[in-house]
């Protein structure tokens, strides 16, 4: 059964704008902004999907419609068997939402108090709640932090509390809106690891929006790219690279300060002394041929062969899109 099913979902915002000049005192023209222009997709249970796109692309609008806090202008959607904007309260029990840039906790009080209130809000029975809270607190290392006022915690600590808060009622579906924004590397890693492992163990479905491409790489198995209110790409993560950037990166560490490989489809990238990076167009040259050519030069100390970073993939998608 699909956890999320979206069919031709549309959202047009209406706003009134005063006409320029004197007539602006009396008349305003109504402008329409199409934030989301008819998107369709389905997400199966236990899938981990990233929804990415440039600012203003319609990601947040889509997420809001799926969580029930915004009514669409047209189209249909079903989340966990509910129509989100019609059955918001019933759906609420089954979803957990984390906003990267907004706090859901009561800041003057310790996180423990917020958790206790959330238990009441979601009608979780005491034993289940205690068990779950204990395991989540241990998992995220929140032990001593629970009794400090939330406003005294660092951003990373607060985000961990936010995520725990969203999981206390055992939701089947997680919406994460920019969950790692502004966090340091350790905190980001902790959250990514957690999503991958915990969500997997609990069988939760995860829908994530992010600007950080590492979030996508390390956490999600599928990527939906939205641009200007429409779906541009909907692919599994590993296929994305292959489809959009038909090249691999070969990095060579050598005794010589600089190496040159002269083969078709091989381009030299900015490199440091003794470390040369080559971009190999796999449609033109084979990687093993390039490697053999490199070894033939002699003095090679180390070779790394890898996919280009996800950032490049995403940028390529955006560029390909805006060029249209």
């Amino acid at each position: 059964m699909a956890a999320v099913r979206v069919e031709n979902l549309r959202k047009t915002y209406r706003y009134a704008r005063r006409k320029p000049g004197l007539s602006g005192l009396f008349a305003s023209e109504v402008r329409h902004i199409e934030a989301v222009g008819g998107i369709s997709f389905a997400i199966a249970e236990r899938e981990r999907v990233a929804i990415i796109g440039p600012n203003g692309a319609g990601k947040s609008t889509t997420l809001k419609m799926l969580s029930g806090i915004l009514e669409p202008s047209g189209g249909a959607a079903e989340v966990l068997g509910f129509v989100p904007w019609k059955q918001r309260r019933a759906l609420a029990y089954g979803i957990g939402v984390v906003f990267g840039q907004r706090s859901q906790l009561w800041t003057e009080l310790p996180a423990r108090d917020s958790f206790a209130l959330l238990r009441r809000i979601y009608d979780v029975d005491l034993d289940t709640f205690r068990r779950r809270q204990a395991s989540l607190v241990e998992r995220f290392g929140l032990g001593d932090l629970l009794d400090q006022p939330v406003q005294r915690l660092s951003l990373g600590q607060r985000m961990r509390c936010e995520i725990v808060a969203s999981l206390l009622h055992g939701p089947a579906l997680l919406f994460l809106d920019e969950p790692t924004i502004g966090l340091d590397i350790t905190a980001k890693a902790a959250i990514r690891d957690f999503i991958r492992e915990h969500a997997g163990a609990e069988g939760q479905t995860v829908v994530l929006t992010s600007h950080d491409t590492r979030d996508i790489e390390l956490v999600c198995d599928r990527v939906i790219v939205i641009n200007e209110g429409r779906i541009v790409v909907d692919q599994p993560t590993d296929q994305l690279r292959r489809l959009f950037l038909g090249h691999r990166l070969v990095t060579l560490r050598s005794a010589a300060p600089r190496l040159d490989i002269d083969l078709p489809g091989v381009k030299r990238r900015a490199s440091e002394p003794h470390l040369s990076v080559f971009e190999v167009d796999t449609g033109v040259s084979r990687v093993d041929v390039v490697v053999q050519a490199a070894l033939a030069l002699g003095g090679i100390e180390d070779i790394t062969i890898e996919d280009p970073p996800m950032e490049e993939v995403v940028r390529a998608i955006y560029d390909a899109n805006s060029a249209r």
Partner: protein
Amino acid sequence: MPSTMPIARAEPALFGAVAAAASALGLGIRRNLANWPIMMGRALFYLVAMLVLSALWDKVAAQRLPGTLAHLLPAGGLTLYIGVTEWIALSVAAIHLRLEDDIRFGMLEPHLLRPKSYLVQKLAEAMGDSLGRLIGIGAAAVLALVLSGRAAPSPIAFVYVAVLGIFGTAVGVLLMTLVGLSAFWVRRVLPPYLIMQKALFLLGGLFAPISLYPGWFYHAAIVTPFAATLFVAGDQALAPSLAAFGRGLAAQLVWIVLLSGLIALVWRAGLRKVLREGV
């Protein structure tokens, strides 16, 4: 054990709603305690205001000028009355500011994603905060009364005042909720707040009992929710009577019901707007 469907809840929905509200109320009280320096400041302000206002009314009462309303004043002056009205006025939690923040800065969203009503929760929190204030300022008031050596009201008057004070504060919180909900449609809640506050002071008789007003004015004021907030409790401090207590309590309950209904309608309209147009 994947849970794809929402958990079946053991208790009936009403119990859940009440438990959540009670929890929010407790949270409001605890938050009040956490902010104790501000609470102290508030209690101090109360004492200073009482100092000044009692000095004023004592002087007026002592003068007993002929041809004035001075003969209507009780022998002890209006200190006890104002002590009660100021106590209530300072205890009404600033829910309108919290609502304005949440509504205008998009902070409603996390609440809309939860299965319980945001408004009920906010009201419960505000009532908890107000209860904390009532207790804190009330303690300061009793202390000041003892230290001042004034004649204290009778024990039964304390009971009447306490009950009407709590319900009066509730009416006040509901009024401020209406002010806060205006944030759905107006840019700043400050203007409606100031209007509501002044109406409360004037028609609720903060500085003087509305029974001193000219007849027509008194009759207009007594039927407002403002009189139910301040006057009915303050009046008991001057002349405790079971009949007046009963009438006052009845008026407060009526207003609580009416204002709650109005709030529900306004909230529903505001919510519709937000769900359609986004925050």
